[in-house]
């Protein structure tokens, strides 16, 4: 069996990645267009970036979005970790089926349904809509993602190291914080990042649960895009893409280095005659 790419595979990859990336690259390219018209190249310019940073309204919305995403993903990691732990470790308790249903369903639930149901809840208990309701709403779907990530990590977790800790005198409670949490920490970090992006990206559930004056960046972009194509949005998109791209690429380089280092150490240890 050849490990390299066959022609068909190469075509599939090229086509797939072109489909995924060409639109984004076009967007980035035209954000430096002097002309207001999208289809006319009016020369290189960064003027739309300048205008973007003059736009107090958008900056305010961006700030709210970041605040919301940070709060919701932190809450999601706390609740999602506990939920993932319950899913992985407590194989039988009353209501487990319902519990696992409530964990998995939000992953696929159409956003309009989630949004409407949360809105009706907040209205019927007379909870004024604002940052608080948005945080709750975002947490309710982000925690499922964290729970799934943590659960898969815990399922492949070697339980004997927890038993070893207890055997050496650590109480179960202490074991969780000294052994389990540090070992699964990378899963919590990726869960947090995942929640952060999901929250930062959400339009529908946010529009149902936000109150006046609490428009987030995606909601602002959404209303702007509905009215038509604007060069400022190109610039804004480019900035957001750049931040994510730098973040993801850096993270994967760091991860790869750590992996290479680890493999090297393992090879050396295996080679060492003991």
């Amino acid at each position, binding site marked *: 069996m050849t490990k390299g790419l066959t022609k068909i595979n190469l075509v599939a990859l090229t086509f797939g990645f072109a489909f995924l990336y060409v639109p984004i690259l076009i967007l980035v390219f035209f954000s430096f267009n002097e002309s207001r018209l*999208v289809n006319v190249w009016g020369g290189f310019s960064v003027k739309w970036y300048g205008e973007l940073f003059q736009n107090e309204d958008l900056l305010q919305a961006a700030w709210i979005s970041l605040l919301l995403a940070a709060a919701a993903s932190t809450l999601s990691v706390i609740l999602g970790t506990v939920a993932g732990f319950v899913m992985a470790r407590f194989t039988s308790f009353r209501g487990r089926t319902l519990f696992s249903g409530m964990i998995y369903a939000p992953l696929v639930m159409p956003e*309009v349904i989630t949004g409407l149901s949360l809105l009706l809840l907040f209205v019927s208990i007379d909870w004024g809509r604002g940052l608080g309701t948005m945080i709750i709403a975002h947490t309710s779907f982000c925690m499922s993602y964290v729970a799934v990530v943590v659960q898969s990590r815990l399922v492949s977790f070697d339980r004997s190291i927890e038993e070893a800790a207890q055997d050496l005198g650590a109480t179960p409670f202490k074991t969780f914080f000294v052994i389990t949490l540090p070992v699964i920490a990378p899963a919590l970090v990726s869960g947090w990042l995942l929640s952060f992006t999901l929250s930062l990206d959400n339009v529908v559930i946010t529009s149902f649960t936000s109150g006046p004056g609490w428009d987030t960046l995606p909601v602002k972009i959404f209303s702007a895009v509905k009215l038509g194509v604007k060069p400022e949005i190109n610039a804004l998109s480019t900035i957001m893409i750049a931040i994510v791209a730098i973040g993801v690429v850096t993270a994967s380089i760091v991860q790869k280095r750590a992996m290479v280092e680890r493999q090297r150490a393992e090879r050396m240890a295996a080679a060492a005659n003991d």
Partner: protein
Amino acid sequence: MSMDRDAADRPTAALITHEDGSFLEKLEMRLRRGRFAFLAPAIVGTLSLFTGRGAVIALPYGFLLAFFLIPFLIVLKISFSETALSIPPYTELIEVVDDGFEYFVNIKLNLSNYWTILSEDTYVRAYLNSAKIAAISTALCLLIGFPMAYAMARADETIRPTLLMLVILPFWTSFLIRVYAWIVILKTEGGLLNTFLISIGVISADDPLRILNTEWAMYIGIVYSYLPFMVLPLYANLERMDMTLLEAAADLGCRPIKAFWVVTVPLAIPGIIAGCFLVFIPAVGEYVIPELMSGDNVRVIGRKLFTDFASERNWPLAAAVSVVLLMILVIPIMLFQRQQARLQEAGR
């Protein structure tokens, strides 16, 4: 590696369970012997909520009940009420009448919202149309996603992480921006695709391609946005596949193309199912993509729901629409949940 039966048989051992057992067990025994034996399960049940294991379960359970399950019950309740010019804009289902002489409780179950949905052509069509668009989009995602995932899984081990990152990267960038990028490309007047095609003379300026504000735009939007959701579970599945199985098939006289259909595809079915559910279910209720890309002529249920809620301010009707949508989706959602749960069990 040991496959010791003892180890396999051991129940989920005690991380938290150690303490709550002894005390509560003793208490229950004592209570069962006493006069209020019938209360024993209730008392012990309540207490167990506050000891180690119970508390751990109660925290996420409580949150999900309060902010996931109960909201649906409220939606269900409101779907039976009538719209009203009040705040909130619907009538109460339960009315307590106390006029000095009589005291009674009125429960008004109003089925008119459901009647509207079932009798009005626009709603029925919107549901069917949404299901159709979601199904076709899912099929298209599979058609593009499977070869990609397959090629990634068969690529050299050293470049696999990079390829994986390239699939995930768009997923981390804003979904809205990606939809927006397509609008820039597909616009009829001054869209990049039309500008390009006109400039190379394929089409004339008087008769540009009309893609935006049609169903086509919606397919492009959904496939584009949801493609990573299809590729990732497929890749995870195909990557784990034991390549020696294909060698064994070849050794036994099976040609590569046939081996693909009789070995690779059947083994990839869990991944295919997961990917299809992850695309199909949310796509049925999609709101942002049709709102931005397919104009007013394409009617889908997500938009209908949002319009009823936001523009018409008919919350009871919107609630009924989502109850019906949920009823349509409940079977695929349950299947998805069962499959995910089984996948997790298998990893154990």
